[in-house]
């Protein structure tokens, strides 16, 4: 199987298989191919092979385990699944997209529970993806956690993460559907207190990207506009409240009673959550992170409405 000619200049000295996978390219011709091999404790180390199409036996021999027949080797696929390599089966590093392998002695069983069902696994390491598969839940909509007892957060196990089942305390896994988010209105507590205590009726809306706070039927300066009250929208930027909201928006559109037209810099439409808002282009350059919040923004809006010309 060894076909390269060491004197051939078209070969690079060493090809890192994981780098090639990361970069999404095929392997270059090389004198040595570097893979990652983990032992039963999931200690990983590099192994350099001369053959890009090794057998399981070749990898085990290169890893220095004896007798080879007492060991098993699995390729860990990017998805987290294990692929069993037989001793005399060749494994083409150039095609498979796997650069990690795990080696362990066979004939052991590890017990744990998933969702309170007893499980047994013949290998000391297991991936998040396999745990979900064993639990019978879809891998793309569920998360699996390792329960940590006695003071510590439960650990999220991603699909390709490997857990060492031989360690003490690795006993219970739970799967949870990933369908709940913080409300789009992750409004800071200070804002909520302010809105509560000042009697603002507020609706928090979101289109998945932007979160908006609608101040319902905000009272406008008396006699100034063609409506006595309007809904006022503030769009919270990512990073709020450390980042300032910029403009604000009114619905219905407001015109100045005295002039019969829109106020200056308030004549552009902005569509948000199915409504056509009047954009009030008023910018804020003096936002103080950690200090300012919706209370500052509301004061600015009240000021802008009172001063509108």
């Amino acid at each position, binding site marked *: 199987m060894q076909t390269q000619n060491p004197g051939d200049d078209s070969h690079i000295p060493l090809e890192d298989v994981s780098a090639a996978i990361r970069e999404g390219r095929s392997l270059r011709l090389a004198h040595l191919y570097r893979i990652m091999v983990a032992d039963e404790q999931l200690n990983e180390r590099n192994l350099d092979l001369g053959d890009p199409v090794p057998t399981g036996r070749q990898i085990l021999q290169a890893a220095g385990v004896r007798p080879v027949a007492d060991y098993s080797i699995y390729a860990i696929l990017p998805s987290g699944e294990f692929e069993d390599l037989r001793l005399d089966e060749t494994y083409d590093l150039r095609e498979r997209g796997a650069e990690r392998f795990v080696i362990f002695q066979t004939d052991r069983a590890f017990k744990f529970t998933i969702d309170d069902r007893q499980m047994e696994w013949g290998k000391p390491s297991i991936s998040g993806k396999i745990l979900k598969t064993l639990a019978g839940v879809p891998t793309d909509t569920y998360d699996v956690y390792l329960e940590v007892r006695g003071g510590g957060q*439960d650990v999220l196990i991603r699909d390709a993460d490997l857990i060492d089942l031989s360690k003490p305390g690795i006993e219970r896994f739970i799967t949870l559907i990933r369908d*709940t988010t913080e409300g789009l*209105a992750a409004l800071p507590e200070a804002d909520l207190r302010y809105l509560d205590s000042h009697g603002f009726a507020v*609706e928090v809306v*979101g289109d998945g990207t932007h979160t908006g706070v609608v101040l319902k039927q905000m009272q406008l300066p008396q006699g100034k506009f063609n409506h006595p009250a309007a809904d006022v929208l503030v769009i919270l930027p990512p990073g709020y409240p450390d980042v300032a909201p910029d403009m604000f928006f009114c619905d219905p559109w407001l015109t100045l009673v005295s002039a019969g037209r829109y106020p200056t810099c308030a004549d552009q439409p902005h569509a948000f959550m199915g409504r056509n808002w009047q954009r009030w282009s008023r910018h804020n350059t003096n936002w103080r992170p950690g200090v300012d919040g919706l209370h500052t923004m509301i004061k600015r809006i009240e000021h802008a409405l009172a001063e509108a010309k």
Partner: protein
Amino acid sequence: MLRRLGLLDFNFLVKRVARHPGKTEIPAGELWLVIDGGVKKWACLSCPGGCGVQISLSLNPERRPRWEVDQDFWQRPTVSPSIHQQKMCRCHFWIRKGMILWSKT
């Protein structure tokens, strides 16, 4: 008792547990606070929006999404921020002082 007397109003009361309930069904009206070794880990409840699925809110401050749960003298929980179910019944609500406040989105 207080509720029967009409003195205390709530939709949820906190019940402390040491371990995540897994697939155990949580009775309506209870919010199970998973605290182990002094660490608040999860708040679990049955979705009040009609679908009834179990909701597990992560209280781990290092991860997103995350929530905080406080409780008052009467064990009424306040959860922040709000809770938005993206699948199933798609409800969106706050729990403040044990009461559900529905959000319109």
